[in-house]
């Protein structure tokens, strides 16, 4: 589904990079722990998080996430927004809590990232 559809499903506010709203998103992953995102995130995902410092945006860039969704009505700090604009990473913010946001997207057909592989890859 597109980021625009995700925005509609979650009644989310667009924080930056409107030009990315038509990006196709094929999977999502949610965590406040960037260590986990770096270990288990996959390229092209929508990163869902409640962590608002600039490390959330930097982590998204490092793992080649396509977009970021902040839950619980949170928004990234100024440094994070500046970095997202620089990298062209669209940012959405929804008032839904993490569990509900994930549930709504999953229900709409957006899968999560694959299970943790025991072979460490």
């Amino acid at each position, binding site marked *: 589904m597109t980021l625009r559809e995700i925005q509609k499903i979650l009644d989310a506010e667009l924080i930056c990079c409107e030009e990315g709203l038509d990006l196709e998103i094929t999977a999502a992953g949610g965590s406040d*722990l960037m260590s*986990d995102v770096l*270990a288990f995130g996959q390229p092209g995902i929508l990163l869902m998080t409640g962590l608002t410092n600039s*490390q959330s945006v930097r982590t998204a860039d*490092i793992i*080649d996430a396509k977009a970021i969704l902040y839950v619980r009505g949170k928004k990234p700090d100024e440094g994070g927004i500046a970095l997202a604009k620089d990298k062209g990473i669209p940012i959405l913010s929804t008032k839904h809590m993490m569990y509900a946001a994930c549930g709504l997207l999953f229900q709409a057909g957006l899968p999560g990232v694959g299970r943790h592989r025991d072979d460490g890859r």
Partner: protein
Amino acid sequence: MFCDDGLSQHFQIRGKDFSRAGRVSTTIKEILQEVGIDPIIIRRAAIACYEAEMNVVMYAQRADLILNLTPDEMTIRIEDEGPGIEDIDKAMQEGFSTATDEMREMGFGAGMGLPNINRNADTFWIGSILGKGTVLIITFNLKQAGRT
């Protein structure tokens, strides 16, 4: 600096500088994209580099990072001035961490850093002297295909 047989570049990482944390890794990722390295390898290198950079920011006073690129191999060497690691075997275990609350609030310190560097690298060497610092040497085979 570009030369005939590759590229070598030096970066400095400042400890405890959380506002700038990750900038070196972002810069290295941009360099690798400019050079035209395979995107899968770039992603693995960026993740390893970022984990290492965050370790320096969280635990050490400072570090020198040297990126060396040849047509066959990429090497990232990080040498920090810091407390060193008391038990490297323990530090290599997923979930083992000595992180503070401040580090955890940054979204890090879950004990995933070194194992994740190891997972993404083709070879990984770590050495540490207590009270002096830690050296990481991370390499990526640029001729290898098929890894994801």
